[in-house]
């Protein structure tokens, strides 16, 4: 019964993390970059949103501003990687560190800013979970449709090919570096959008929010794709799966809390989920049956 009561909240929060996981899907799966910027840009989105809401800016405009701020953060990582030649994983860590300072200054030096949900009209808030779920589903659906259309355009196709086969892309006149920057901007824009929704839902943003976000997003991606790839391996089904993965993750999360797991161990739990999803397929292919790697086959976790 307690669990059922917690369910709507878990679904609403899961949708927000599922949206964030869509952003990570673009960097991790499409660009083949493990982008650690997201731990910072998620918080940036929340900070921008919370501060603008306090200034009386309408909620939808705050969310758009958050998206742009996240896109900017992604561009910084992309430029560090492509122009300065810094390995992508380190470029992401560097931007993440920069964002900590940026986020603090956005919050005016405070470590936590609250949003007065009674005084400010918000897109979603935990005080009304059914409405939050409706808003969450709407925003997620709009994002998936826009991305689906985008990845069928000329630019979208080259973004995909730049991640899938950089050699082929360059040979076909595709500017791989430009596409990496563009993809990281889109990915972090979506992550910051999720951060803005997260801040509204929770009614606050803390400078600590977003820490370990990439692990939650990867867990959502792996849970989601383990099901959706079996149904139909196409883009839209994958994205829906990823969002579903976020929701499932939060239902599990709430369930283990109810079972009495101390919240201190939750980050460990997230990490273990990711380790299992990455590790088990590897062990299966490396140790159980020694079959030759399929040439050119992309790793699928």
């Amino acid at each position: 019964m307690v669990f059922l009561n917690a369910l709507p909240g878990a679904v609403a929060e899961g949708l927000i993390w599922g949206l964030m996981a869509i952003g990570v899907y673009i960097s991790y799966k499409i660009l083949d970059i493990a982008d650690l910027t997201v731990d910072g840009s998620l918080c940036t989105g929340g900070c921008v949103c919370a501060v603008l809401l306090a200034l009386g800016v309408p909620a939808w405009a705050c969310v758009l501003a958050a998206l742009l701020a996240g896109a900017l953060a992604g561009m910084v990582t992309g430029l560090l990687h492509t122009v300065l030649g810094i390995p992508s994983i380190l470029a992401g860590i560097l931007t993440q560190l920069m964002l900590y300072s940026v986020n603090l200054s956005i919050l005016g030096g405070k470590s936590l800013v609250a949003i007065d949900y009674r005084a400010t009209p918000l897109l979603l808030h935990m005080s009304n979970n059914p409405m939050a779920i409706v808003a969450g589903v709407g925003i997620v659906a709009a994002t998936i449709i826009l991305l689906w259309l985008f990845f069928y355009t000329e630019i979208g196709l080259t973004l995909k090919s730049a991640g899938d086969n950089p050699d082929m892309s360059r040979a076909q006149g595709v500017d791989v570096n430009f596409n990496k920057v563009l993809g990281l901007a889109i990915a972090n824009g979506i992550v910051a959008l999720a951060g803005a929704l997260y801040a509204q839902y929770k009614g606050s943003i803390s400078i600590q929010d977003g820490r370990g976000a990439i692990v939650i997003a990867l867990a959502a991606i792996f849970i989601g794709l383990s099901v959706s790839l079996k149904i139909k391996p196409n883009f839209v089904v994958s994205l829906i799966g990823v969002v579903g993965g976020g929701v499932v993750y939060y239902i599990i999360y709430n369930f283990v809390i109810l079972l009495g797991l101390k919240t201190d161990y939750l980050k460990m739990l997230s990490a273990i989920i990711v380790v299992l999803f990455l590790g088990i397929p590897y062990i299966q292919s490396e140790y159980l049956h020694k079959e030759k790697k399929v040439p050119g086959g992309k790793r699928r976790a």
Partner: protein
Amino acid sequence: MLKITDLHKTFNPGTVNAKVALDGLNLSLADGDFVTVIGGNGAGKSTLLNAISGVWKPDYGTIEIDGVDVTNMPEHKRAAYLGRVFQDPMKGTSPDMEIAENLAIAARRGTKRRLVWGVRKAEREEYRRLLADLELGLEDRLSTKVGLLSGGQRQAVTLLMATLQRPKLLLLDEHTAALDPKTAAKVLELTDRIVSEHHLTTLMITHNMRDAIAHGNRLIMMDEGHVAVDISGEEKQKLTVEDLLSLFAKASGSEFTDDRTILS
């Protein structure tokens, strides 16, 4: 069409692994030339093609394509002039994308990509027709991911991609070496057909001396980073493998050695 002047490239300069790959190479190709390139281990064949493609910049020398100096042009910009097929069949296509999407990306080589539909309907019809010409049964598999195709099929699709937007220069880097003999012959036959159909200026590296003699109107043999033998016209038509080996010995002062070259 192509003019290479005094091209030099050393890999790992100043280390014990320093390797002079191109050593003052000069080469001019006339419009419509189909040149086969042959040479021993480390003669600089692939290095030459990579230099033309812009994979890295040469240490010295210039490369002109159709009168444009491309020496310092980045690889993706230079691609507007070039069609490329690699030795590795996995390298030329995007495995996680559909055949039609791969072709559409290639069809827009040299144009600015815009926020418009990436594969138009009329295009799909054209691709279906072009794929039917390959006679590999790919015409009904436009939506198939390229990663599911065989090496030979992928190489044929890559060849189509390289020539969809007619290149000023077609670069074939041992593009049949990784295929089984039957498929290799098929892809080679396809190459001949496409090259002659569009009168493409072509540089084709091969490790098969017979292929080098049978195809194209001109043959060059490379040795230690420069052109050692350059034969064209009637002289090339009468050429035999034995002639080629003795020409090489005369030009380079040593026996031709390459563990991969097929002599007969």
